């Protein structure tokens, strides 16, 4: 069923006129059953619940197929679908506590197979990929530097919402973004996302000092 769905999606994408590499897309589709078979045979000692993590959703399939460079119509479809997943707090308040956000930005805990039963809250692990507070020198470079991100945008309300959306589901703005969908996957709670938004956007946060 899953493989069938993959073909339908991929076939539709090709039919819609992906400008580049129709041949390599066809190759990728030929290869798909062999890839799925290899995966099926390589995680035999784990539970069905864990194996679910290896099953791709629609967006993962498309981003894989196009190697994160989807053609315009595919990108639009991804953007629309992922935008629809974003939920907001009922009171409309998108900024939480930057101090709690700072702790979350430092922590990479959660959902690895050694993290069960959970011993602490999941962390956003922002520093794995981003520079934020200039005093924290141990930062990764897979994502852009967010040094003074809020200050550079005058802490504007629409920019606050953009950051909230970006953490909740980055594909809504940037289809096939590398960043995880922290809200859509339920990895982080709305409260945690608000705390991270505050850490990035608040005038009091060390990120903007």
């Amino acid at each position: 069923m899953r493989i069938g769905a993959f073909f339908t999606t991929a076939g539709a994408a090709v039919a819609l006129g992906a400008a580049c590499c129709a041949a390599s897309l066809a190759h990728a589709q030929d290869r798909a059953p062999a890839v799925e078979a290899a995966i099926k045979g390589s995680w035999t000692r784990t539970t069905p619940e864990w194996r679910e993590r290896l099953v791709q959703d629609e967006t993962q399939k498309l981003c894989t197929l196009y190697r994160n460079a989807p053609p315009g119509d595919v990108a639009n479809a991804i953007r629309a679908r992922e935008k629809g997943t974003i939920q907001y707090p009922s009171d409309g308040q998108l900024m939480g506590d930057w101090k709690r956000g700072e702790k979350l930005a430092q922590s990479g805990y959660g959902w690895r197979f050694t993290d069960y039963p959970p011993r602490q809250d999941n962390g956003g692990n922002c520093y794995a990929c981003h520079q934020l507070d200039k005093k924290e020198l141990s930062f990764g470079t897979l994502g852009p530097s967010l040094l003074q991100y809020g200050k550079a945008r005058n802490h504007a309300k629409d920019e606050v919402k953009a950051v909230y959306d970006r953490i909740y589901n980055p594909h809504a703005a940037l289809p096939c973004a590398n960043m995880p969908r922290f809200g859509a996957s339920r990895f982080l709670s709305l409260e945690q996302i608000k705390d991270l938004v505050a850490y990035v956007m608040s005038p009091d946060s060390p990120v903007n000092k």
Partner: protein
Amino acid sequence: MPRGLWIAALAVALVSAGGLHTRAQDDTEREVERYRQMLKEDPWSNPGLLEADRGEALWKEKRGPKDASLEACDLGNGPGKVEGAFAQLPRFFADADKVMDLESRLVWCMEKLQGFEHAQIVKRPYSKANQAGSELEALATYVANKSNGRRFAPQLGHPKEREALAIGEALFFRRQGPMDFACATCHGDSGKRIRLQGLPYLSKPEEAREAVGQWPAYRVSQGTVMTMQHRITDCFWQMRLPLIDYGSDVAVALTMYLVNQAKGGEIGAPQIKR
């Protein structure tokens, strides 16, 4: 300084570095690099060679229900031919009718020649910090070390070898799991890092040659050797994927992709890693 003391001093330096400050991290990297230079001048002081020696003894010892050694194990160039075998792995093995990497081939030989139970062999394939290496780690280090100085010469003559490469490439770019990560998310560009840990761009031959040629590696911070299967397992752990079977087709296919990217790269196993 005597070798033991030197390793102890380096271990202290690593622990005190703690990974929190660039300068400490740079110091650690510098110390590891100095260590690598010393090993070039005196290769016999490489602590990973203790595992290679242990692996050689295990290879030659009659063990298991069949009371046999591994000396008749065919690693691709004929029974008992260890020299240079690692440089041509993974490859297709007609007796097993599949493509195998070094580690899955070792498991196969332990099963077929020595009569060990598969489940028993793969129960604890990876040692924990500051423990002696597992039997598989010791054996893998021994065999890989016997290709030291040779260059990766990936085998693609058999259709199943070409299929493994194609599957490996597809897997490298496949996004999955709750974090949407692919191998390429972290290893798809030059000069990137997680925190302060540098990440090799594994689809770029120059970087793949350097990175892939180092495994199995002796981890100074762990005091033990780590194999390519272990390295891949740890990546999947970080990607929030389940624990992968030891010697699985996925790990073999990924290794096939990596070795093909690293084609022509010099093998320097066991290399010293942080």
